[in-house]
């Protein structure tokens, strides 16, 4: 969930009234948001870097507001205020207008076929006669960053470039060139660099270095030129310094390039709908014609065309209390979804504004209706759904066995299913290739390299962490292990194991053996070879030679018991002898 920071004073000024913190918290909740934190720049720096560094930082109060991940229209002060004002019915949702310039007068963006291999999509629009202030400018920059981090997936899907249109001359060309052929002065730099040099320049940049990998190893880098060869930007890395926006900028050229055309359109829509508010003619946007390599042209932005019709179906009406179309229409209008009843009175015509790309199904509209209605006002009903409950047989057996093991004097451990490769292999005297273990590709630490193939390491580690406890230690765990299995749909399978350990001054094999007998007794498995269980001398790398036996049930091996090998004991940083039992309980279900 993205968090939006807004200055409280600016927010209240824009809302035309002030709130107490509690009132504002309540308002956020009603609107489906969450006031996460009330803080200040000073507070933030002081928390992260210490009070010393925070000296001189601003102590203007900031509201940090959690916004649902797909509500891109609420990621800046402008959108947030607009949403809340419409919700409280203080203003009507502005009507966005797309101005299409006369033939030959509008801006054009020509996309060349070289972009196909690296960043095939581009959309653009122009904001005319805009007035920036410091706060508006900051918000404009901040929204781009928020969009880059969220919907743009760290610029991988879409990158936004904004330019002072008065510094450049169209038509513009979006193409891709070899890094050595691209040369320009990047934003806020003092001299020109080639694209290759730019990559080197930003390799250590704390912010930009994260985007280099998106194009770095490609033969051609994307680049946008104006008709005089001025570089607007090298997406998704950096803009040119030439087209830099300042507080004096009046006309803004916005381009979004990317690998996902749907998201590029959404991002462009959000940028223009949020900031067209500051145009001389508010909420107007000048269209740009994009010419594709195949000669086809598109006019962007597209979604500003209004009047999408949506009929609510029966399945979408999720709340019984929202059933009258006229009450629904009223609620939806408060959520920026201007609605009115049509036809025979059972249909709604809903305008989905370009700000609400998150609405892709009628159920999204119903969700908004429910928010506007207020979750607290929804009448709680217990479903009449009649069902008979069943337990999963394996879990039912596990529950029963746990009780009997505790009754036998053993204490339940709860250890991690993930562990190091060493835990299941080296430390148990076996090789990882012999374990058939599932291996994790991206562990953050050695503790999460593999899924366990045995419960034993977890119990040994539990004892190692509890060496100060009085002896004997008697522990058990009934839980899942994981092994590769090419026949399973995901290529791996869980097995429910039972493991018990006895740790004392003497190994106590007879105690673990007695526990096995008890487990078999409660499972109603008699001690005999044909239709019961037997144990037979066996070997295992984790066991002391001659002190290991395999457990057979109806001739099928289910596990082993024995005295733990002294090397294993030492490797798990233990000092006392111990014996263990580990069996698969699935055959007993």
């Amino acid at each position, binding site marked *: 969930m993205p968090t939006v920071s807004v200055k409280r004073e600016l927010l209240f000024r824009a809302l035309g009234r002030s709130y107490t913190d509690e009132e504002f918290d309540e308002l956020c*909740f009603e609107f489906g948001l969450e006031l996460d934190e009330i803080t200040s720049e000073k507070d933030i720096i002081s928390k992260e870097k210490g009070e010393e560094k925070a000296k001189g930082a601003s102590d203007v109060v900031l509201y940090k507001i959690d916004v649902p*991940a797909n509500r891109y229209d609420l990621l800046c002060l402008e959108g947030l205020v607009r949403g809340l004002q419409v919700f409280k019915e203080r203003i009507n949702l502005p009507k966005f207008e797309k101005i299409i310039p006369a033939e030959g007068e509008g801006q054009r963006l020509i996309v060349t076929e070289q972009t196909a291999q690296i960043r095939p999509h581009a959309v653009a629009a122009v904001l005319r006669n805009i007035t920036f202030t410091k706060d508006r400018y900051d918000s404009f920059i901040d929204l781009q960053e928020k969009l880059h981090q969220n919907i743009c997936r760290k610029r991988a899907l879409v990158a936004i470039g904004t330019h002072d249109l008065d510094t450049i001359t169209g038509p513009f060309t979006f193409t891709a060139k070899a890094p050595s052929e691209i040369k320009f002065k990047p934003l806020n730099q003092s001299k020109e660099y080639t694209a290759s040099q730019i990559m080197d320049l930003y390799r250590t940049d704390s912010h930009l270095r994260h985007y280099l990998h998106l194009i770095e190893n490609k033969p051609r880098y994307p680049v946008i030129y104006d008709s005089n060869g001025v570089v607007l930007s090298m997406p998704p890395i950096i803009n040119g310094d030439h087209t830099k926006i300042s507080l004096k900028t009046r006309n803004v050229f916005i381009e979004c390039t990317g690998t996902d*055309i*749907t998201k590029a359109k959404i991002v462009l829509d959000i940028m223009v709908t949020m900031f067209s508010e500051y145009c001389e003619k508010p909420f107007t946007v000048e269209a740009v014609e994009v010419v594709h390599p195949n000669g086809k042209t598109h006019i962007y932005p597209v979604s500003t065309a209004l009047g999408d019709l949506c009929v609510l179906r029966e*399945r*979408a009406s*999720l709340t019984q209390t929202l059933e009258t179309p006229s009450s629904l229409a009223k609620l939806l209008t408060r959520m920026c979804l201007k609605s009115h009843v049509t036809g025979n009175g059972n249909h709604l015509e809903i305008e989905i504004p370009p700000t609400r790309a998150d609405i*892709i*199904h009628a*159920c999204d509209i119903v969700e908004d209706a*429910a928010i506007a209605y207020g*979750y*607290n006002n*929804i009448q*709680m*009903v*217990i*479903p009449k*759904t009649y*069902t*008979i*409950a069943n*337990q999963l047989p394996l*879990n039912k057996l596990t*529950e029963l066995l*746990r*009780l009997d093991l*505790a009754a*036998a*004097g053993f*204490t*339940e*451990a*709860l*250890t*991690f*299913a*993930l562990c190091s490769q060493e835990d299941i292999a080296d430390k148990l005297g076996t090789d990882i290739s012999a374990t058939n273990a599932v*291996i*994790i*590709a*991206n*562990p*953050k630490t050695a*503790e999460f390299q593999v*899924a366990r193939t045995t419960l034993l390491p*977890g119990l040994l*580690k*539990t004892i190692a*962490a509890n060496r100060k406890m009085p002896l004997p*230690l008697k*522990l058990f765990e009934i839980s*899942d292990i994981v092994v*590769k299995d090419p026949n399973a*749909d*995901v*290529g*791996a*399978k*869980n097995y429910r194991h039972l493991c018990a350990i006895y740790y004392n001054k003497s190994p106590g094999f007879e105690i673990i053996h007695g526990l096995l007998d008890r487990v078999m007794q409660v499972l109603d498995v008699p001690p005999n070879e044909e239709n019961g269980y037997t144990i037979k001398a066996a070997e295992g790398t984790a066991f002391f030679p001659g002190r290991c036996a395999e457990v057979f049930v109806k001739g099928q091996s289910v596990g082993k018991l024995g005295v733990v090998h002294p090397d294993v004991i030492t490797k798990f940083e233990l000092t006392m002898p111990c014996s263990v039992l580990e069996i698969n309980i699935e055959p007993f279900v």
Partner: protein
Amino acid sequence: MAGGNQGTLRLLERLDQPGASGGLCSIQAAAELGVDHQTLVGAVKSLQALGEVIEAEARTATRWELSPEGEEVLRDGSPEVRLFRSLPEEGLPQGEAMKLPGGSLGFSKAMANKWVRLDKGAPGGPRVLRAVPSVQDTVQEHLGQVRTGGAQAVPERDRSELKRRKLLLEMTLKSYWIRKGSAFSTAVARPETELTPEMIATGSWRQLPFKPYNFSSLGLPPACGHLHPLLKVRSELRQIFLEMGFTEMRTDNFVESSFWNFDALFQPQQHPARDQHDTFFLLDPAEAPQLPPGYYNKVKKVHSQGGYGSQGYRYEWKVEEARKNLLRTHTTSASARALFQLARQKFTPVKYFSIDRVFRNESLDATHLAEFHQVEGVVADRGLTLGHLMGTLRQFFTKLGLILIPSGLKKWVEVGNSGVFRPELLLPMGLPENVTVIAWGLSLERPTMIKYGIKNIRELMGHRVNLQMVYDSPMCRLDV
């Protein structure tokens, strides 16, 4: 013990006799009562423990005893007397005299007493002759006196001499001088500590006093096994679901394909949750060998083109992305599998639940672990609404002891998540159009920590858990 009590009683009776008003020596009393002195001392101590019943003053007494050698002297006479008496009138040559009873020791003592003399000039070598007509064996007499308890009558100097000669031994004996105390009573006897089979058999318990128990001390902890507190909460939650008529879903695959974990749930392939930062992907097996045929094409279509009333996400859906294996990040993947199975039959309404492990590639801290348990409830029926979801949640959380009141709605949002499954999730599976599925999920750890006041999740799960905490944890009663 009964025997001890008998001794105590007899001592008290002896003290009560006339003539004992000045007190008794414990040694003497033991002799009189015919018990071992140590036993009597035991009786004294147990009486002292009862308060002012008796007064006992510790004394150190010295007693003289004959050594085995002393016993021999008492019987046969001292070596010097025996030598003197065996010496004939005319004397004997020194060599022969030494062989007489008493021997050289008797000779040197007799010489020292001037009872005999040595005539060095006698013909045939030195000769031993009597020097006095007769002698008295005072050594034997003194030993006899000591033997009959009259050691005090033997002069101090002689006693020391006899001790030096190792004929007498000086024994020190700790004893008590016993008098009646201010609370003296012969009725006082040390109370019994425990009922014994003998007392039951003989009925003696009817007469015997019993020592009161100390009820303020703790009892002996029983030797027992223990269940893990988090899993006790798991059992309780299973019970709650079962009481509410929910059937348990299969969750026995920690390894899951991206398809079931994300795609089937209509999570777009570029969603941040599918980042390496949040999810454990697998190196081996890196890909799921099988995706459900037919169904996966429908999932692909709803993502890339839409359908079922949805515009979809309109991006290029990649099967390679869906095949990527991971450790499931939620049990909703298991719910998706269960709903998919449900859709293959003629629809009947269901209520499902599961509680099992899920995995997140997160940095560990006081509230985050790389693995934890997810609790999930799902209801599928025709015509369910948000009101039904909230009604079910209220019922569930009330049983959990976390009361849901309208204005406290925010609180449960923080404990877990809930919602209505999207049609883009249900319809490709083949569920009927009018079926709604409501679901909610929460971690098992979170309510456990709230309920038991545990601040650090690492104290609750994993091998570093303190076993004492497991031993000491109370039973799980969420509704009280």
